[in-house]
């Protein structure tokens, strides 16, 4: 379902401040195109163009009711972007934590070059060193689990 091009479409659609403003308002409630356009400092055709891009990215769905088009947010479509942020943040946090353990474990015994006076707690490589956050899920990059960002309860 999620492929590279849909991810790109999501990122591109999210890249514009006006479109983010539209999404933020739709996040609060469903709106008609007219309601949406009223407070925005742009023409109706310009708003329609943004809406089309959001629709193509799957971020917004429309339904017709009489003569008006009602727009609503499709939150599911944001998941790939959230997933990218979550996975890459976890990757760097885990890797830099491991780098810290590696540096600690490999510092020279004659530590004149190292200003810290903290003793090395356990000899050996960083692989043997305990992880500082034991409760943490093992989700370095690339995530193999369905890791979700905070607040996402699915």
């Amino acid at each position, binding site marked *: 379902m999620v492929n590279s091009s849909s991810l790109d479409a999501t990122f591109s659609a999210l890249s514009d401040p006006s479109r983010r403003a539209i999404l*933020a308002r739709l996040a609060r409630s469903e709106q008609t195109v007219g309601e949406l356009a009223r407070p925005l400092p742009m023409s109706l055709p310009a708003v329609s163009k943004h809406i089309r891009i959001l629709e193509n990215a799957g971020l917004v769905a429309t339904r017709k009711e009489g003569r008006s088009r009602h727009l609503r947010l499709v939150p599911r479509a944001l998941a790939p972007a959230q997933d990218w*942020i979550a996975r890459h943040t976890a990757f760097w946090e885990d890797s830099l934590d491991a780098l810290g353990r590696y540096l600690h474990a490999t510092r020279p015994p004659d530590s004149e070059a190292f*200003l810290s006076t903290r003793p090395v707690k356990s000899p050996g490589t960083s692989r043997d060193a305990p992880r500082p956050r034991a409760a943490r899920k093992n989700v370095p990059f690339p995530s193999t689990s369905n890791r979700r960002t905070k607040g996402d309860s699915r």
Partner: protein
Amino acid sequence: MTDKLPPIHVTRTFEAPRDAVFRAFTDPSAIPLWLGGQRPGDTTRVVELDLQKGGRYVFQGTIQGKAWEIHGTYREVAIPEKLVYTWMDSSDGHPPSGESLVTVEFREIGGHTEVKVTHANDATDSARRSHEKGWSECFDALARVVAERRQE
């Protein structure tokens, strides 16, 4: 097209001089000891690493039994201060998400070293411009909605 997603920032301070931190960050024999998964059974392998502007790197590994690869090209190599490189990743179950850009800055602070990693989703320079605050507020709002709606 303007900026894409806001870049990720991760910062750590290490109790080691900058030269040592930079070396650990770029030494092919050290990289497998910290980059990627570090649980028993996880592996990280440096397949290629040409630390110079325009040079390529390829890292491969497994995590929880699943294979992954990261590769890219160094755009800036300022020993021992800064690295800028492109980043393409792929792994079992995760299709590639396009080229992104990693900037690593090494700052010496009182004999310690602060490492700041900036990972921009888009490898073009425009991705690094700063609509960031407005973006993250918007994204937070959206994330809340996503969470609420999923509970429904």
